[in-house]
């Protein structure tokens, strides 16, 4: 037994080093964002001597990060609400209701999983341009919904499969219509899954850069991540402000991670084990 224990500690040391390598880049960035330019040039590593917020406010105000932040918030919130609504409606019907063609429709939804955005970028941009949806908020929301709906339908369907059909039969006997069952029974019962899928979708949309780059060409519609990519050119000689801009974009995600880590991991796990 003692040999095994020794082995465990021999494993723990590299694991700790890896944990440090995982965390350090972010701590470094936070530290740099707090420094003055002069400090950073003199010494890359010294701990900042004070908590300075000037760099953050410079990034927020003069680079337009504030505006991009609002754009992202609007698009991501709308996308997530739509994804949850459409995904749970379809998931409920595909898992609990018997109707002709349901398995074909389910496969149709799943087929979307195997079509990455890169493969349909050109025709999709053309469709958006032809329908005057390119460079509009609803256009990008639609692109996000189309991108993440297959995954959402898949997860909601497998979650709702686990709900006993007696519950639905009882609700029907009480005089509920199908829509009533969806609203009064399925939505409340689906809360844990909706929360997990909702957070995952919010992360996916918030973190996206390629779709918003292609679908939102104009500066005033720019999302936050595209804003981060433009920081490099503007602040190549002012690293603390650059680091501050990066932090602004990372803060919401870090907050979500700190408070909702569980749900994110559950969503990822559910997506992999239900397959």
């Amino acid at each position: 037994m003692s040999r095994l224990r020794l082995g465990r500690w021999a494993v723990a040391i590299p694991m700790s080093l890896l944990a440090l390598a995982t965390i350090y880049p972010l701590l470094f960035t936070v530290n740099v964002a707090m420094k003055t330019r002069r400090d950073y040039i003199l010494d890359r590593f010294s701990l900042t001597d004070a908590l300075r917020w000037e760099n953050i406010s410079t990034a927020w105000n003069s680079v337009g990060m504030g505006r991009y932040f609002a754009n992202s918030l609007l698009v991501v919130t709308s996308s997530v609400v739509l994804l949850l609504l459409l995904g749970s409606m379809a998931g409920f019907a595909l898992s609990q209701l018997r109707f002709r063609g349901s398995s074909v429709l389910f496969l149709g939804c799943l087929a979307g999983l195997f079509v990455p955005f890169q493969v349909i970028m050109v025709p999709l941009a053309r469709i958006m341009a032809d329908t005057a949806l390119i460079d509009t908020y609803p256009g990008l929301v639609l692109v996000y919904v189309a991108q993440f709906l297959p995954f959402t339908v898949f997860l909601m369907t497998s979650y709702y499969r686990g709900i006993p059909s007696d519950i639905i039969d009882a609700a029907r006997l009480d005089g509920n219509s199908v829509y009533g069952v969806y609203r009064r029974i399925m939505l409340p019962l689906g809360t844990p899954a909706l929360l997990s899928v909702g957070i995952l979708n919010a992360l996916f949309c918030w973190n996206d850069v390629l779709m918003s780059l292609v679908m939102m060409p104009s500066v005033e519609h720019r999302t936050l991540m595209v804003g981060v990519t433009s920081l490099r050119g503007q602040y190549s000689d002012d690293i603390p402000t650059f680091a501050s801009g990066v932090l602004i974009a990372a803060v919401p995600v870090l907050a979500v991670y700190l408070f909702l880590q569980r749900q994110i991991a559950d969503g990822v796990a559910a997506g992999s084990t239900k397959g």
Partner: protein
Amino acid sequence: MRAERFAPYLLVAPAILIIVVLRLYPLLLGVNFSFTGDAEQNGLAVGFDNYRELFADPLFRTALGNVGLLVLLLPVAVAIPGLLATFIYLRVPGHRFYRSVYFFPAVLSPVIVGAIFNLLLAFDGPLNAVLGSVNVGPVDWLGDPDIAMFMVVGVHIWATFGMALVVFLAGFATLDSALLDAARVDGASLPQVVWHVIIPSLARTIQFVLVTTMIGMLTSMFGLLFVMTSGGPEGSTYLPEYYIWIQQGQMNRPALASAASTILFVIMLVVGMLQIKLLERAGRDK
């Protein structure tokens, strides 16, 4: 009650419409585009001209070569989270802490990760400062065509192994612990346990992680490439997705980009099928 018969269809309709119109139909449209011309030949059928041009383009050839590199590095990208998940499952001291720390970069956008590593890997940046203090370097991490792609892939693995780790842990949750106990009683060493118990029992999870990691490498590195190297130096960090974006957005060659898209789609199908085949064979040998 008559209207009730249509209820299921009405519930599914919005989802299926969006998926068909904005995902499946564009796929066909894109394949169709790839056989038409650009610019003055817009809309005219040109047969395989775009494909010929693609394979003659050194940038696209580099992009395909880099896909080969990704395939070679795939076992590393899967083994790291697999091994770490094994240790966490076997309850190393502090396993809860490790799990949440390792998972953390997975929620960051590639753009943010790329920007942070731009700072760390800059020629006058901290990594070279550390190496300089022990009289090594400086190394031009992102400016040397022989190194840059390895750096970008390394950062991608750093940023995503936490996702695969969570998937592996979900797989471990379904593992029959009696098997492990039996192996322990028989005095099996850790490598023996991994090889004879864990790998066969988790074949499905490993297959899933292999496929999703490969798909991730082929379709979610754009943010890193865009921020860290912009395809450079000397075009050495091109991947098909970056090539598609450049041809469509910068070069105004949508038909050529569509041909590259179609090839990317074929690569993904082949990769998926190959891996499933390989694992089936591995499963039969056991």
